[in-house]
């Protein structure tokens, strides 16, 4: 990986053995950079820290550039010139909308529910006096350090030892909006602080995200999420049981409990149905196991394979319906789909049949009958079945259009008769089969002198 760079000696007299695996030093940039560097050096003499470094050790900056290589030096010097800029754009205020003051979140509170005020200033004697810092970069301010980090230059976080300094550094990183640097500082803080850490909201989110990616820490929902990676259903069920103890909100706690109950039931149902002994399984073999399916899919399955079982059995539709508090509407929709698929029209009818106090049977539905028709039609119900439900549609316009669409001729004819719409009836006659029952019926109506046609 290392490549000697002879040009180095030309103007950099340091003893550092230069090499680079920097990526932007193609000839063109190099040339330009050197040119700029040479000219900039003349105007720049306040940045001589870099030159009198007497360290023999190779220092490699973050981006992999060795300290002292040409491109490194070039960047060093170049960055100290503040370009006024012919095309200089103004700085805009990018401070987060949250107030700075008092926006300290506690990381530990998130995971350990531990916190303590941390803004107190640490005793100055704990900090090393400045004079002791021989190392040439140890005096970099938080601002300078963050700037160097962002540019991929060599830097050191070692000097940020007091909590206050660490927080200053973090604040600086946050205000630079560079997520990469924020995370870098957080990783350093994580390593050098035992537990307590007060950070800004933005930093906290970076930290949480980092821990998530590292799979080190889990928030409440992430703990629950872990069940998804457990393949064995019994283990998964047991894990879900432990999740029920987690402090979820009231609503979510119910859902998590449902999840456990559902899988528990599915395991029981699966154990029996897998054998496929009942007649229905032979007639309609299962395509997949019921494990880990949603509640409604389980209900559909139960309406398909276990219809009519008593509520006492776990696999019965009634049991599932009550266990998971399924609404009437949802139940009817699901049962309708399942029974229609099996072409059990009798069951379909009885879903909607209600008896009034006089003992008359009437059809009632919590969902619009046009939806019922739609579901029946999608399950290839015959016209005889469809027409019963089309005739129950309230909205006349919808009823007429669906009757036409599904060829429920009788309904169409009767509706035109009631509308006294002779013209439409004549038109419709063209759509029915010649000489058929419907055709004759239309002829009869058209010949009926008693009807006062409106046209």
């Amino acid at each position, binding site marked *: 990986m290392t490549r000697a760079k002879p040009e180095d000696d030309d103007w950099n007299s340091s003893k550092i053995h230069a090499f680079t*695996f920097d*990526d932007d030093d*193609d000839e063109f940039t190099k040339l*330009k950079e050197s040119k*700029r560097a040479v000219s900039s050096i003349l105007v720049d003499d306040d940045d001589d820290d870099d030159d009198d470094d007497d360290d023999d050790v190779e220092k490699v900056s973050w*981006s992999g550039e060795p300290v002292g290589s040409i491109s490194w030096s070039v960047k060093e010097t170049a960055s100290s010139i503040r*370009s006024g*800029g*012919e*095309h*200089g*754009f*103004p*700085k805009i205020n*990018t401070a*987060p*909308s*949250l107030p700075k003051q008092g926006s300290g*979140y506690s990381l530990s*509170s*998130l*995971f350990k529910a531990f*916190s303590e005020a941390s803004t107190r200033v640490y005793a100055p004697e704990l900090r090393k006096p400045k004079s002791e810092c021989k190392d040439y970069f140890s005096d970099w301010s938080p601002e300078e350090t963050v700037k160097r980090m*962002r*540019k991929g230059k060599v830097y050191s976080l070692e000097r940020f030892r007091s909590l206050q300094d660490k927080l200053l550094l973090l604040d600086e990183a946050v205000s630079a*909006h*560079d*997520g*990469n640097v*924020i*995370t*870098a500082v957080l990783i350093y803080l994580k390593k050098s602080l035992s537990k307590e850490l007060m950070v800004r*909201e*933005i930093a906290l*989110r*970076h930290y949480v*995200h*980092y821990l*998530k*990616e*590292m799979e080190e820490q889990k928030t409440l929902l992430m703990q629950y*999420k872990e069940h*998804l*990676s457990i393949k064995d259903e019994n283990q998964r069920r047991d894990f879900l049981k432990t999740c029920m103890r987690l*402090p979820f909100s009231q*609503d979510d706690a119910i*859902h*998590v409990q*449902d*999840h456990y109950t*559902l899988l528990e039931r599915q395991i029981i149902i699966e154990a029996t149905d897998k054998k496929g002994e009942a007649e229905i399984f032979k007639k309609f073999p299962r395509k997949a196991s019921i494990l*880990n399916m*949603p*509640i*409604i*899919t389980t209900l559909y399955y139960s309406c398909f394979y276990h219809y009519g079982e008593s509520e006492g059995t776990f696999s019965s539709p009634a049991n599932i319906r009550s266990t998971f508090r399924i*609404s009437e509407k*949802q139940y009817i*929709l699901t049962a309708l789909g399942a029974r229609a698929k099996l072409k059990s029209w009798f069951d379909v009818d009885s879903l909607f049949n209600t008896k009034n106090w006089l003992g008359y049977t009437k059809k009632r539905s919590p969902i619009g009958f046009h939806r019922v028709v739609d*579901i029946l039609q999608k399950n290839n119900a015959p016209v005889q079945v469809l027409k019963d439900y089309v005739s129950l549609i309230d909205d006349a316009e919808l009823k007429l259009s669906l009757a036409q669409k599904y060829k429920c001729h009788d309904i169409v004819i009767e509706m035109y008769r009631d509308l006294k719409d002779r013209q439409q009836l004549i038109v419709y006659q063209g759509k029915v089969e010649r000489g058929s029952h419907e055709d004759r019926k239309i002829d009869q109506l058209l010949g009926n002198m008693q009807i006062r046609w409106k046209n």
Partner: protein
Amino acid sequence: MAQTDRRDAPGLPDFSLLKRLARDQLIYLLEQLPGKKDLFIDADLMSPLDRIANVTTLKQHEVDKLYKVELKPVVSVSDQLCFLIRPRIQTVKWIADVVKSDKAVGRFRRYKIIFTPQKFYACETVLEEQGVYGDVTSDEWEFYLLPLDDDIISLELPEFFRDNFLEGDQRWVTTAGSALRLLHFLFGPFSKVYGIGRCAKMVYESWREQVEDGEKKAQNPDIGNVFLIDRDVDFVTPLCSQVVYEGLVDDIFRIKCGSVEFGPDVTSTDKSLKVMLNSQDKVFNEIRNEHFSNVFGFLSQKARNLQTAYDKRCGMDIKQMKAFVAEELKGLKQEHRLLSLHIGACESIMKKKTKQDFQELLKTEHSLLEGFEIRECITYIEEHINRQVSMIESLRLLCLLSLTENGLLPKDYRSLKAQYLQSYGIEHLLSFANLRQIGLLVEQQPGETLTVMESKVGKLVNDKTAGKLTDAFSSLAKKSNFRALSKRLMLIPKTGEEYDLRVPRDMAYIFSGAYIPLSCKLIEQVLERDGWTGFEEVTRMLNGHEFAVTGGNSGTETRNKTDPQRIILVMFLGGCTFSEISALRFLGRERGCKFIVLTTAITNSSRLLESLLDNQG
């Protein structure tokens, strides 16, 4: 059909330079590891890589075998392994495992990671922590920008959206700034930058600092103006069903990196076919921005013309026939092929859309946008959920409901969420938590004004208990204020008027005349008034973070509309849809300017929502 540009419209800069630059840098990096090597490529880098180089290029630089990164033990026998990856911790962990298992069996190899577009400190820390830091060298391939078409450049970073807007991780801010810097360097200098959004502001700052530190050059700019916009400024638009051809094709077949795979139902053969969809495809170029209802008519007209052209053959003498075969036939055959492909695609779209009652779905969407018959909409969505119709579609409608209504009533929220979990799986609890956090699907805070909300956030900030933290996060998600914005910006054209989709009168045509996309309307208005003045009410409803800045000495230039001033780079942070691109193309044609779309990725409702799901292990 295929409206023509104004004659004085400026031409677009040539972005193929970007491809060349990226390719050259990749070659340079590969040469840094001399000798034969096997190359492992991140799955989502393969298509972008395909657009700028081919296998031959790689082979020429001693790449022996190519593998897809699959996070499984490697089978390669090469002495040198090179990994071309996105900077993701998971991938780096896998590489560390590869190195460690080699070490365990005493195998010596050289390893090099090329991170693109940049490396992250956290990734290198993984190498360090795993004790393989020195064994693996790393580099950066600054492949920021992939031109997908003449006027579309993509960063191909779909994770930008989730990382930034959901996780609150600003790792890509600098990347976006660098992408902008590169365009500024090659096609700038820019003279004016407008923007809105928290991320937009940060990207602007990052770009500005990079430009300040870098070199300046005097050149004639190709691009004069820049507009930066955060995706969360407008969530409504990307969640609407797309009905413009290109968007529709993306919704149904998923365009990936400018190319689409048409299945046997489209090709009417037994094979699937991968096709590039861009301005090079003459047929596509004419229909891409059209409302779907026009496309069929156009294609059949085209087909008739083609027939006439073929028919010319009859009655030709040998000489004419020879000329015909030499000059026209190839073009005609090409056109023939493309035509039948797009006709096949249209048929397939029609079939799919009829099956799912598209008309009724669109009606519900339009009602939501208009704020009309909301109860009926809720019933429709509920039935959608109850019948277990597409999981993503249901979620999309729920989010549209929440966005347009400023949140759901608590009882509706609870009931719809419960039904959703019953229908699609309880593990979607996680998805709901995410959607709540990002502000896409929330409960209404009854009677709460903005100031009350702010003081609440202020209070929570001091609260250190764990439970409240999540609340604080979700409260940060802004209110959408869609209804008020829509009124103020007149996003919903008056109902009752006929809208001729063949002759669009405004950008609403991309949504059948029912809605002008908020994002594009903002761009139009801000460019028109050259800033945000007089728009205070609007920006307040959008949560602020707007800016309009002029560069150094370009003050005089901005006044007169020179060509570069009429080339506007619009950067979408968090993705943009093909519908929005169509709308901007329309706007450009109307105003005699050109828009170049720079996006972190092309998105649509499914991609956007899928990136927020957490229902898989």
